[in-house]
């Protein structure tokens, strides 16, 4: 065991106080220490985007951040997107309805990336969606379904806001 630190952070609304090895990256910490295996690790050098999480509302590669750097931060992972155990988030529903996933490996990173994007840009064009997910690799869908899902989700979220 190398050097460790005590950290306190909030993940999906739940407080955690943990001792972490300083060399452990945030993605491994979420999966191995907190058991939150929804965040997927693909390349672990910042290329694939599967491990993307939101740190204080801003997207970050969890493989390119140390767990110790998340001390005092508020994180959102794919497990925290749905409002409860029974319901899906409108973005998740749109993914299901538009064939936005097949194997599901890239999905956690796609969802977190798009949560941030649709928050900043509630009425995007197709081109903007493609640019937003340009840092997330998907090898199943050819991206068509994902782009359709994101555009559909934007409409669903807008309808909810107006309701």
């Amino acid at each position, binding site marked *: 065991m190398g050097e460790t630190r005590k950290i306190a952070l909030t993940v999906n609304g739940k407080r955690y106080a943990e001792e972490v090895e300083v060399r452990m990256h945030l993605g491994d910490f979420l999966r191995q220490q907190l058991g939150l295996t929804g965040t997927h690790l693909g390349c672990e050098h*910042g290329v694939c985007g599967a491990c993307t999480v939101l740190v204080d509302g801003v*997207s970050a590669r969890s493989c390119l951040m*140390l767990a110790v750097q998340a001390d005092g931060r508020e994180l959102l992972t794919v497990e925290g997107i749905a409002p409860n155990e029974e319901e899906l988030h409108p973005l998740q529903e749109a993914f299901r309805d538009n064939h936005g996933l097949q194997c599901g490996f890239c999905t956690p990173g796609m969802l977190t990336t798009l949560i941030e994007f649709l928050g900043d840009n509630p009425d995007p064009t197709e081109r903007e969606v493609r640019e937003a997910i340009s840092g997330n690799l998907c090898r199943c869908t050819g991206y068509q379904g994902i782009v359709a899902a994101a555009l559909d989700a934007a409409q669903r979220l807008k309808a909810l806001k107006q309701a």
Partner: protein
Amino acid sequence: MKAPRFSYVRAESLEQVFELLKQYGEDARILAGGQSLIPTLNMRLSQPAILIDINRLDMLKGISAGDGAVRIGALARHAEVAESPVIAARLPLIAAAMPHVAHVAVRNRGTFGGSVALADPAAEMPACVLALGGTLVVAGARGRREIAAEDFFRGLYETAREPDEILVEVRVPTEAPGTVSVFLELAQRHGDFAIAGLACHARIEGDTVADARLVYFASEDRPRLAKGAMAALAGKAWNDGTRAAVIGALTDDLDPMTNLDGGAAMKLHLQRVLTGRALDAAVAQARAA
């Protein structure tokens, strides 16, 4: 566990950083955005004794307009630079280059200072700082010094920063009225590492290119000011003859390196193609202004 063992310090002051750099020298690494450093740790390509995390040093943050120049704090994130109205208004070259820097999650954490200090040969920001004649401010226990961009980039990941110094800010002169900027990059996919790229800042009067700074990156071991091509361009009308002279001069100006993205001859060819496109665009921009 992927990374090798190292010590970690979350720095609370610049003095503490100076002290640690003095003590550890080349065995220390500054952890800023971490978007280049942490991959090398995950892959065990580097094995520092200690990481000095500077992310909570507020004095290294921010972007501000001063006397004829813009101060960009070393810790300013790429995303902040991309969204900054100061940058958009005063440094259009940097604003034009920013969309080429990786992807959103990487821009959210990666820092301007980190990119300049690392001096990756394919990076956009070092080329822009050199094209605009910026100044790098480094500091350490021995004091503070300012280094012109032309003297800062020395080779492959090599800079004039000493191991006991840290880059604290970058000062870039505000682009003068009547000048134009063009940034072009070729990559396999948008956001990937560049194969060839050019940062161009020029003053064009009527049909004449009064003077231009051309900085080539990705093909070279460092961002390269193409002095021969610049001389061939100065005071000339942009026409077929000038184009041939400028493109010809690049043979001596550039020293392309072969890598996985392509051979030296192909990279020279691509830089020549970009040169023509950049000056066409610069002249069109000047006409439209």
